């Protein structure tokens, strides 16, 4: 069902040549087990930073992040097989085929070759990648590459799924297709995990999330908005929520 995520008073500063830069300041939020949370905000408001902290590849400067009772940076290896990320750039390895890229996470777990092949085949089928198993990333379109990136994340059956503007660089049509497939997977019971979905697109945030966290520059969380399930069917209500988020970002 997914691990819960607790971010308590997290600040992250970076040392640069010109001095200290604060990427995020006093971020404080909780994601319950199985929730799908979106975080929306402009470029440079710390969304990717907080994602990398929850992922465990960055440590907070102050504050605490707890995922399922453990700390992702300090207890890094204990999260093997439990956290997966999908990035804006697909980050596929050029020397691996689509299948080999997708099964990368499974290689970190105690799995057999046949299990990995079967799992990848299953997710490729669900993501419309059948027939592209032996293709190199260079031979795939941007949308197909991102589908492989999604497969790579889903195939390990993670407890926590982190997406960092996963559809942000795709064209409108491809992004819409991929978003629909993604929602079908996470809401349709194929992969219900705790999900943090980062986006700069307000409409996408309202479409994907059970709740929307609003972040504004310079790296401050300013609102947390519960999204009614019927929002997409009520244009006027949708517009009100949109205006509320926009007003927070101005």
């Amino acid at each position: 069902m997914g691990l819960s995520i607790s971010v308590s008073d997290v600040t992250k500063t970076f040392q640069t040549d010109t001095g200290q830069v604060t990427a995020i300041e006093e971020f404080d939020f909780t994601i319950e087990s199985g929730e799908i949370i979106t975080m929306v905000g402009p470029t440079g408001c710390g969304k990717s930073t907080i994602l990398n902290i929850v992922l465990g590849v960055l440590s907070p400067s102050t504050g605490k992040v707890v995922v399922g009772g453990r700390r992702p940076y300090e207890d890094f290896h204990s999260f093997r097989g439990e956290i997966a990320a999908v990035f804006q750039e697909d980050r596929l390895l050029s020397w691996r085929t689509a299948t080999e890229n997708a099964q990368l996470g499974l290689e970190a777990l105690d799995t057999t070759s046949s299990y990995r092949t079967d799992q990848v085949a299953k997710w490729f089928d669900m993501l419309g990648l059948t027939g592209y198993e032996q293709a190199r990333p260079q031979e795939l379109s941007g949308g197909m590459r991102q589908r492989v990136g999604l497969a790579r994340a889903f195939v390990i059956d993670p407890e926590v799924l982190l997406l960092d503007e996963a559809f942000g660089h795709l064209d409108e049509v491809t992004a819409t297709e991929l978003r629909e497939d993604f929602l079908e997977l996470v809401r349709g019971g194929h992969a219900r995990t705790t999900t943090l979905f980062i986006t700069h697109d307000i409409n996408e945030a309202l479409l994907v999330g059970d709740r929307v966290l609003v972040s504004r520059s310079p790296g401050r969380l300013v609102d947390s908005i519960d999204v009614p399930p019927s929002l997409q069917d009520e244009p006027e209500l949708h517009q009100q929520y949109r205006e509320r988020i926009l007003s927070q970002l101005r």
Partner: protein
Amino acid sequence: MVNRPGTNLLGAPGDVRLPPVIRTLVPIAAFFTGLQVFAMTTPPFIMPSMADIGVRYFSIWSSDPGAIISTFIRIIVGLGSAFVVGVSSGVAMGMSSVIRGYGETFVKFLTGIPGLSWVLIAVLWFGNVELRIVFVLFMVLFPWYSLSTMDAVRGIPRDYTDMVKSFRFTRREYTQKLIVPYILPDIVSVSKSNIGYAARIVVVAELVGATSGIGRELLVAQGRFNIVDIFAWTFVLVTVMLSLQAVLLIVERTQLDWRETEA
């Protein structure tokens, strides 16, 4: 070759190009033709004919294989030891700023020492000729492996490292799944250069005290003023070097074929 105005000589649409094998052989043929023309205008003790050199070149392979084998083995051992130590140290320096802090400047310092200096030092340090020659090859070649590997490791994009790290691999798995395949093209590239260096350095090392090898044969030929042998043995060395390059080509074609599909 057809060259339309305003188009690039290399590969523009409409150009009629010679097959790759022919394109490879044309400059080499031109080189030997130039030497032959030179031979026709100078005394044979200055520049012998290509025919004389050719006869001697082919006879060497059947009459003096021992010298060729000695040089070949020395190159392999020297190159191999430089590769192992150089790539290992390069990976270590690339992954650790602490190790890099201690090692990088020292390795760069070593690149400034000429091969000839190492030959002279080795003559005084080592009584054993084989050890001496391999030592010289190692000291000349390993810094280049080390620095190229270090740069390649440091050049791995942060996107890749974060993505692979996020799966929580062990350090060994991380090295095997990301670092080794990523740096392999750079290692092949530096190996191509190092094979050439090795061929040139081994001959210099063999000139001093070796009782076998192509370098020794060149020294003997020079002592006898036998310019045919000098050219023939030189071309034998080039052939040895090209055969090693051919091995690298096979590695490239089998292990790095994914590069051909990159834009």
